């Protein structure tokens, strides 16, 4: 095995379900060498959530969390390496997405924390971070960034494909078989974020395993219609969203006037995720004969996957496991790839999807 092309991707998404670390070998196509998932302590998780909404003294809190997350990211990488036969000298770089605490493309800023100086210092490995802001500086949304990676590794000249990542938010990348056609990519809306928040509120669980709780309730069509009428769902891409828009307080406000059981609400939230995804595809993808490949935590929610299959009965719907990339590690692999692109001086954004003025080399390098 070539030792010259291994990168580590570090991803902590809006769902806050853990820090994903994956060592990716790009010497031959793409192979996932090792993976590790690091739990985020509850206290830290709570502080991160606090930072996603305006609060007093948030700069002090952000400084504290930035350091703690940097240390936790470094610990996650060191744990991954200690569990494998890899040595640090084999790793070209770490690509760290960071933890998004604010994403405001409408104001031209996005903020990911988890100090990359600390990651580089504590791991001894060159670290690339802050991938989104250069795209924003070029008038882009700074998101989504994964479509460029999806196109590089999963384009199929024989078949239209849609990559669907269901993390806290859900995003799609449409890869037409005809490479001359434009790639379409955008956030469709909430992925797991509302379902996670709702089950945490009512059952103190971090997520609804396989959507079992949602399946014990019934979707309320009136509430679903109300939620689907949110302007975001009807905006044309490029567009991106985050916890600033979809959060528990927002949901609580939407529920006013509805007298639903918690499980019926959960069923409606699952339906919202599925319906907003399918609606986005039907509205903005110029293909009907596509294959849908799903990745991210939501791909392991059987009820959600089943619902997507029901709503897209004429399409092949499966996880990215089918094409050889474990659905749990797709996002981490994407940031390993973006780190590689940065070190090689190559661009990492797809302007069709971010809306940036041009392709840019993304990320800031923190040398080992």
């Amino acid at each position, binding site marked *: 095995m070539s030792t010259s092309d291994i990168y580590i991707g570090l991803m902590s998404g809006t769902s806050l379900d853990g820090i994903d670390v994956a060592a990716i070998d790009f010497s031959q196509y793409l192979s996932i060498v090792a993976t590790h998932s690091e739990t985020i302590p509850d206290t830290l998780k709570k502080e991160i959530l606090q930072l996603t909404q305006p609060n007093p003294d948030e700069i002090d809190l952000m400084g504290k969390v930035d350091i703690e997350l940097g240390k936790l990211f470094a610990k996650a990488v060191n744990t991954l390496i200690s569990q494998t036969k890899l040595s640090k000298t084999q790793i070209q770089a770490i690509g760290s997405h960071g933890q998004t605490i604010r994403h405001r493309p409408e104001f031209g800023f996005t903020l990911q924390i988890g100090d990359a100086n600390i990651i580089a210092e504590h791991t001894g490995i060159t670290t690339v971070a802050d991938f989104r802001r250069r795209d924003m500086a070029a008038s882009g949304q700074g998101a989504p960034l994964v479509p460029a990676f999806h196109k590089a590794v999963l384009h199929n000249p024989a078949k239209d494909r849609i990559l669907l990542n269901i993390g806290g938010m859900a995003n799609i990348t449409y890869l037409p078989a005809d490479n001359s056609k434009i790639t379409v990519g955008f956030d469709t809306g909430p992925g797991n974020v509302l379902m996670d928040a709702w089950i945490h509120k009512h059952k103190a669980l971090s997520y609804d395993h396989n959507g079992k709780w949602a399946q014990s309730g*019934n*979707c*309320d*069509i*009136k509430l*679903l*219609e109300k939620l*689907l*009428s949110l302007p975001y769902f*009807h*905006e*044309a891409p490029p567009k991106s969203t985050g916890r600033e828009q979809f959060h528990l307080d927002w949901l609580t406000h939407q529920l006013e006037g509805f007298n639903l059981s918690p499980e019926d609400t959960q069923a409606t939230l699952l*339906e919202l995720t599925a*319906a907003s995804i*399918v*609606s986005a595809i*039907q*509205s*903005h993808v110029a293909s009907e004969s596509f294959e849908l490949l799903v990745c991210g935590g939501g791909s392991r929610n059987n009820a959600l996957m089943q619902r997507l299959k*029901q*709503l897209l*009965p004429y399409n092949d719907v499966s996880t990215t496991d089918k094409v050889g990339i474990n659905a749990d590690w797709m996002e981490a692999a994407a940031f390993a790839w973006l780190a590689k692109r940065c070190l090689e001086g190559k661009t990492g954004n797809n302007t069709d999807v971010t809306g940036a003025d041009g392709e840019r080399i993304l990320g800031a390098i923190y040398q080992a």
Partner: protein
Amino acid sequence: MRTFLISLVFFLFSSVASAAPLQSPVPLSPEHEEPRYLALIKNNSPSEVEMLFHRASMLAERVDNLNAYEPIVFVLHGEEAHAFRHRNMEQHKALLDLAERLEKNNVIDVRICETWMRANDVDRSELPEFVDTVPLGPLEEVRLRKDGYIYF
């Protein structure tokens, strides 16, 4: 016929232009020369649906060859759909008879939401054969809008 349909477009559009939920931002498809219609149901009551059926029937009487046109789609996913259950047949006989006749004559196409059916414990066998079902009503409306259907 074309004159009739053009006047129908103006008539219908003027009545629904300000009340179109779940509109797709995608421009309407230019592929279909003739307009296609989707019923706009606001109150979710059987009487509202019956009124819309009568309006469809009245308009259809002015068309020579109905089979040359797409039927007006009614996507039902609220209280109005209860009217189609066998157990409520007597109470809503006039509505159901009219629906069956209009379906048979290709004037309307009634589609009931399977998600609504599941939430209300309605089995397919409880509904008349002439109605269709769709997985999710609101999504079906989005799809039809994208395909160029305009509200009736």
